[in-house]
């Protein structure tokens, strides 16, 4: 997960130990730097051979290992980590600004003061990046409070792909914000799996007295895990306007085509869902398989067109 550079790690390792004079267990160093213990050993061994010009016994970095902890005895002048590079400060500060602008993310004062301190530590002023109205839905705060309450809830939800409204009991997990919309991620007791509910499509919500137990997941395997292979498989060719599909939906296969389109294979709940899904892509998706879905899409579109025929 953490893609870091070895040189940067070595330059951090010495001040890391300097700032923890009581010593740090090897396993903790490994965890903090996101590498394994063998790598920490190799890093420490290399640092041992580095030092100040002269490179005699008193010039080299000196590190003491014992059974439980690693300590630095001589840091060769590397007591502090390197200043944040511009791109590092930017990545963190922009993320903090997004958090500061997201409803329900707790302590805004702390986010603001952390931003100020980071800017001071970055050396140069980070590029100006403004973040505003990350979530347009004003009720997102209410659902953040629901998640924080730790209670289950009964919701009335409009499903766009089914074009129906239904009532269900859910165990909230978290709020996820993406592309301007806020979603309630929850265990859906009706579906028996984790679902994301777009908050502006929740028509009613009642907090229940019972606790939210999304962890019921761990007690029983998620049905989708073993059913996935039995769900209908569809294959689509996506044009420029529909390529986002492969980012937003889990796909089993994604491949580029010579004509610039994208070939994706995905599992769907059922073919009627898939029909509505493909229709909603506005002709930017061509159904390769199954033929049944291709025919259903064409037929629905042909029926709809027939209604315009007198005018056309």
């Amino acid at each position, binding site marked *: 997960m953490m893609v870091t550079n070895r*040189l940067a790690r070595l330059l951090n390792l010495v001040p890391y130990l300097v700032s923890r004079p009581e010593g740090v267990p090897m396993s903790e160093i490994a965890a903090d730097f996101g590498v394994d213990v063998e790598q920490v050993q190799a890093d420490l061994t290399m640092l041992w051979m580095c030092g100040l010009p002269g490179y005699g016994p008193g010039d080299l970095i000196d590190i003491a290992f014992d059974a439980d902890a690693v300590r630095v005895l001589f840091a060769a002048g590397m007591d502090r980590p390197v200043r944040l590079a511009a791109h590092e400060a930017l990545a963190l500060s922009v993320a903090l600004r997004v958090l500061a602008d997201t409803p329900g*993310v707790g302590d805004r004062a*702390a986010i603001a003061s952390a931003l100020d301190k980071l800017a001071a530590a970055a050396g140069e002023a980070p590029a100006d990046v403004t973040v505003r109205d990350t979530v347009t839905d004003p009720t997102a705060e209410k659902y953040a409070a629901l998640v924080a309450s730790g209670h289950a809830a009964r919701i009335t939800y409009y499903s766009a792909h089914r074009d129906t409204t239904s009532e269900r009991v859910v165990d909230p997990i978290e709020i996820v914000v*993406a592309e301007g919309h806020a979603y309630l991620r929850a265990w859906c007791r009706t579906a028996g799996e984790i679902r994301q509910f777009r908050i502006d499509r929740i028509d009613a919500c009642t907090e229940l007295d019972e606790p939210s137990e999304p962890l019921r997941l761990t007690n029983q395997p998620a049905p989708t895990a073993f059913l996935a292979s039995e769900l209908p498989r569809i294959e689509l060719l996506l044009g420029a306007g529909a390529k986002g599909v492969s980012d937003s939906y889990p796909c089993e296969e994604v491949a580029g085509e010579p004509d610039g389109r994208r070939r994706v294979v995905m599992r769907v709940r059922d073919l009627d869902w898939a029909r509505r899904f493909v229709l909603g892509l506005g002709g930017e998706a061509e159904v390769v398989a199954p033929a049944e879905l291709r025919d259903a899409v064409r037929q629905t579109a042909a029926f709809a067109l027939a209604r315009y025929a007198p005018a056309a």
Partner: protein
Amino acid sequence: MSNDRTERLVNLVLCLLSSRRFQTAGRIARTVPGYEHDSEDKKAHEAFQRKFERDKAELRRIGIPLQSGNDFLADGEPGYRIARSDFELPQIEFTDAEAAAVAAAARLWQQPELQSGSAEALLKLRAAGIDVESHAATATVKSLPGAEAALSPFFEAIAVRRAVVFDYLGSRDGSAQQRRIQPWGCAAWRGRWYVAGLDLDRDAQRCFRLSRISGKVRLTGPEGAYAIPEDVDVLAFASESESRLMPVRATVMVRPKRAWGVRRRADQIGPRTAEGDQVCFSYTETAPTAAWLASFGPDVLVVDPPELVKETVACLQALAAEEGDE
């Protein structure tokens, strides 16, 4: 990176930090292990110079500020040093709440370069003695601004004032067109990322939605190619570029007890006619609205305005007759 090179670079940093004087390349070659060579041998010396250039570039890349200048003893030959005050992370302390915010922020990015940028920053903070991760409360909200893939090239270009080239699908374009701009700044508005700048081909200020960029954003031309005008307000550009899309009223006919999605969005339903219930709602962008209406198939008949009817029919034709035009 090879072990030898990593070791050489650590020694180079320690050497340049250890003295306030500028050290010439020749002196560095004689001092730092890994650079030894016969400076009389032209080939060996050139190899050293290339190696030293690459090493300097690597140090700059990870944020180590190398100063170059002349040492009064070195007879005009340029030398190098690292000023401790520029090199070291200043003293920084976080409260538990601030550390938790920083930890949550570092986990926000999906895009690899921004992810590793935050990860590297966290390591440095940790090396300064801050236990960032241990304060990481489980946040109830995860925020994922969309389409961030193009962000880091823009950040990089803006930092060094370089122009960029990318393919862009404007709201009125049928296919992506190449655009060349001098970017000024980025903003996230309503969960979408925007970049504003000078469009070099149109010689005019323009604002672009990052999610409409297809393919890679490439930096082009020299650094320092332009100055960013003062008081650029990217957010104002972004909201203005979207507000040119004035809301339009649509009228559609919806079959009884069908197309609940359209009914939910309606501000007026009825009267009922032979064609279905008359439903009115407002929209701003024709293409996505038409695609959405087409998804209801024969349950929805678009009546007004004419461009929405035309676009919906075009979607349906594409969907009905794939074979014909492929």
